């Protein structure tokens, strides 16, 4: 049995693991990727020497964190897919086709974020992917799309565009959905945002880089739709009072990131709607402890804050876990936590401004009837509205009316959309509407792998 099992080797998990090990705890780090870094520092140990200058210092900062896994008390299991967590301490995962069980006195969920689903007509065509996905291709594999349009809202669009420019494959255009009034509404958060002036400066820097590279930008765009037969061929939209159509084989969509909640929800951690971030976030107390006593949660999976905030939150959680296990006196914990907490507050300062200045694309939150909402089962927005009209109040009932959320992704890319559509149809707040009930397996596991874990016939449960 380990003192601590960390699920996720992104910044929160890496920082948490290292801090915990530093306090003498035995730590198991389970991560789905073959090499550490999560998504934001994806494959950083391999990619930083190759592309670090293009990807920037924000990326290469992940190197130290990744190297932090090299510690006598840390066992890192890469390419491990966690599919069930039981009793807040038992973790079932598959590595290399073999299912295993690990036990920890405490768990730290550091499962990070997903791109917010952005259902627009044609978004399921091959060639359409998240801007984050394109960035992963760039970071890990050094491949760039040749004829791509970026669409949506948020600073990630600018970062990906800038990285593409530096790699010699400038995007054809940025089609941005945020409006001037979004910016004006965001200004009330500006004083707080100025505490995060580094972020704002960075953003401004990227925008001038894009300007120098001559990348066309459209803002206040509406009526976004991807056109194509078998694959994406163009993005059409309306901006500045004109209808436009940009031919592109690759359309990169992004309108924010949201916590990846599958693991947390699967063990019954309650979530609450966060209006500013337009997503559900897990309920947690000091140090990221959840209502499930042995389980802590840190990083973007607990609420979007970015990589630096995630690392700080991971360290904070580790301090609380160490104190909880008696390896660290509480006074020491509080003393070490104080600067981390202050750092975290500073890191999060710019978020309300950014969230308000780059809100989710309204049309994607309430798409046309014909737009697919559940990619796996091909259920449309119109279907969900129809279920609502038939008395369906919540997402779990929609599973009885259609099949949204029942495919392999288990609602990762439709959950928020279904909740939004039902909330809109019934005039109910998202907390009242609810979200899919998430059950194991949180990732697929073969029946053979699962069967191998069963006790032989005749033994008692």
């Amino acid at each position: 049995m380990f003192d601590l099992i960390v699920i996720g080797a992104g910044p929160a998990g890496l920082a948490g693991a290292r801090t915990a090990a530093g306090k003498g705890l035995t730590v198991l780090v389970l991560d789905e990727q073959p090499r550490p870094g999560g998504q934001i520092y994806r494959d950083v140990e391999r990619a930083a020497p190759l592309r670090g200058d293009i990807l920037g210092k924000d990326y290469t900062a992940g190197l130290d964190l990744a190297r932090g896994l090299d510690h006598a008390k840390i066992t890192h299991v890469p390419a491990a897919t966690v599919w069930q967590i039981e009793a807040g301490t038992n973790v079932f995962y598959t590595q290399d086709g073999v299912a295993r069980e690990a036990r920890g006195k405490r768990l730290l969920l550091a499962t990070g974020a997903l791109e917010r689903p952005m259902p627009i007509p044609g978004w399921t065509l091959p060639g359409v992917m998240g801007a984050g996905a394109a960035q992963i291709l760039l970071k890990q594999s050094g491949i760039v799309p040749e004829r791509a349009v970026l669409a949506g809202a948020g600073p990630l669009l600018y970062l990906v565009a800038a990285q593409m420019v530096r790699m010699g494959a400038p995007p054809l255009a940025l089609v941005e959905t945020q409006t001037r009034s979004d910016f004006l509404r965001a200004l009330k958060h500006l004083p707080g945002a100025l505490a995060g002036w580094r972020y704002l400066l960075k953003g401004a820097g990227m925008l001038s880089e894009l300007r120098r590279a001559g990348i066309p930008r459209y803002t206040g765009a509406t009526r976004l739709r991807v056109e194509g037969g078998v694959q994406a061929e163009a993005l059409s939209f309306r901006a500045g009072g004109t209808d436009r159509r940009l031919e592109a084989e690759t359309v990169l969509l992004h309108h924010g990131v949201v916590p990846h909640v599958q693991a947390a929800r699967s063990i019954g951690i309650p979530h609450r709607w966060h209006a500013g971030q337009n997503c559900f976030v897990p309920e947690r107390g000091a140090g990221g402890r959840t209502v499930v006593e042995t389980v802590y949660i840190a990083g973007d999976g607990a609420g979007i804050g970015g990589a630096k905030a995630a690392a700080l939150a991971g360290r904070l959680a580790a301090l609380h876990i160490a104190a909880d296990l008696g390896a660290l006196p509480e006074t020491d914990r509080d003393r070490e936590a104080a600067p981390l907490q202050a750092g975290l507050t500073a890191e999060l300062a710019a978020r309300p401004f950014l969230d308000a200045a780059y809100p989710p694309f309204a049309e994607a939150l309430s798409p046309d009837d014909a737009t697919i909402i559940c990619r796996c089962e091909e259920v449309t927005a119109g279907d969900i509205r129809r279920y609502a009209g038939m008395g369906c109040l919540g997402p779990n009932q929609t599973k009885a009316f259609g099949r949204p959320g029942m495919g392999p992704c288990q609602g990762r890319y439709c959950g928020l959309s279904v909740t939004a559509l039902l909330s809109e149809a019934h005039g109910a707040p998202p907390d009242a509407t609810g979200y899919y009930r998430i059950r194991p397996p949180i990732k697929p596991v073969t029946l053979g792998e699962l069967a191998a874990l069963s006790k032989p016939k005749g033994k008692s449960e």
Partner: protein
Amino acid sequence: METDYAIIGGGVVGLSVAWGLLKRGRTVTVLDGEDGSFRASRGNFGLVWVQSKGMKQPRYARWSQQSAAAWADFAAELSDATGREMGLRQDGGYDLHFSEETLAKTVSEYEGLKEKLGGDYPFEVLGSNALRREEPNIGPSVVGAILHHQDGHTNPLKLLQALAEDVRRLGGHVINGKQVTGVDKTDLFRLTCADGTEVRARKTVLSAGLGAMVLGPAMGFKAPIRPQRGQVLITEKMPKIINRPSLVARQVDEGGIQIGATNEEVDFDDTVTQSALARLAADAVTAYPILARAQLVRSWGALRILSPDGLPIYQESPVMPGAYLVTCHSGVTLSAAHARFLPDWLEGNPDAPDLEVFSEARFS
């Protein structure tokens, strides 16, 4: 709001009864619960099953047969009205056996029941070679199976959806998100909900699944029901692997393989456990070894509503005449009977089925 029938519970039992009453020209209001309630109708296996029912009570076997025989026509009528297919297949179903002893024992039990049913119990025994001709993917550990020709399966969610739609189309009034907290009767029944909604009705049907544990006694029923958990697995969508259903596994109309189920006495706990998932997976792989490579994508736990002998309960309240308890754990199999035959009993028609064996008199 006044209606002929108020039906407490809008799952497969309540909606089937509502549909049948509407077809007879009655006015019906269905009070349905919350999105997060236990909702057994969303978690069941989808079998339309005759074999193994009523081994100790032939009347139950007969009731199941009557329902199975009426199912195709019922499904066709629902399909015509709603444009939806139920995915009904009635090509027979298996009881799979992994030892000659259990196979022989079950066959002899079935022979006994067949006699009591006057010979109307069409089953045959398939040895392993005959079974393999019918099911090419069956595993070597399966020594044989009993194939019962009256068994079948359907898509229970499509059934629910069609019933929900057609009940509304037929003029039924369905109100969702209602928790009935009180029922009293003067000359009419008055049902009161937690949010203050009131419904008045000439008659009331309590078909609220586990909700009857609380409401039942308040309405004069014994309602000796208890929850029993069944955990079920479902795989990714696959090419055709399994032709006929069994209690071990069936291939649903959408392509996934559904594997079940446990029988656990765990009170109101519908979570899934790793040990049960592993055991169900092991049993499925033993029966169909090709499933070893199939990816499990979902699991669920649902609570059956069980009476002490596992049989349905059909009872009129001794203290509130006109209030009826309708509860069972085979809501899908009995959906046709609840839609076609039970309304006659609720109406007190002369040609109503004799359901005395299902009354609460059997619980002393």
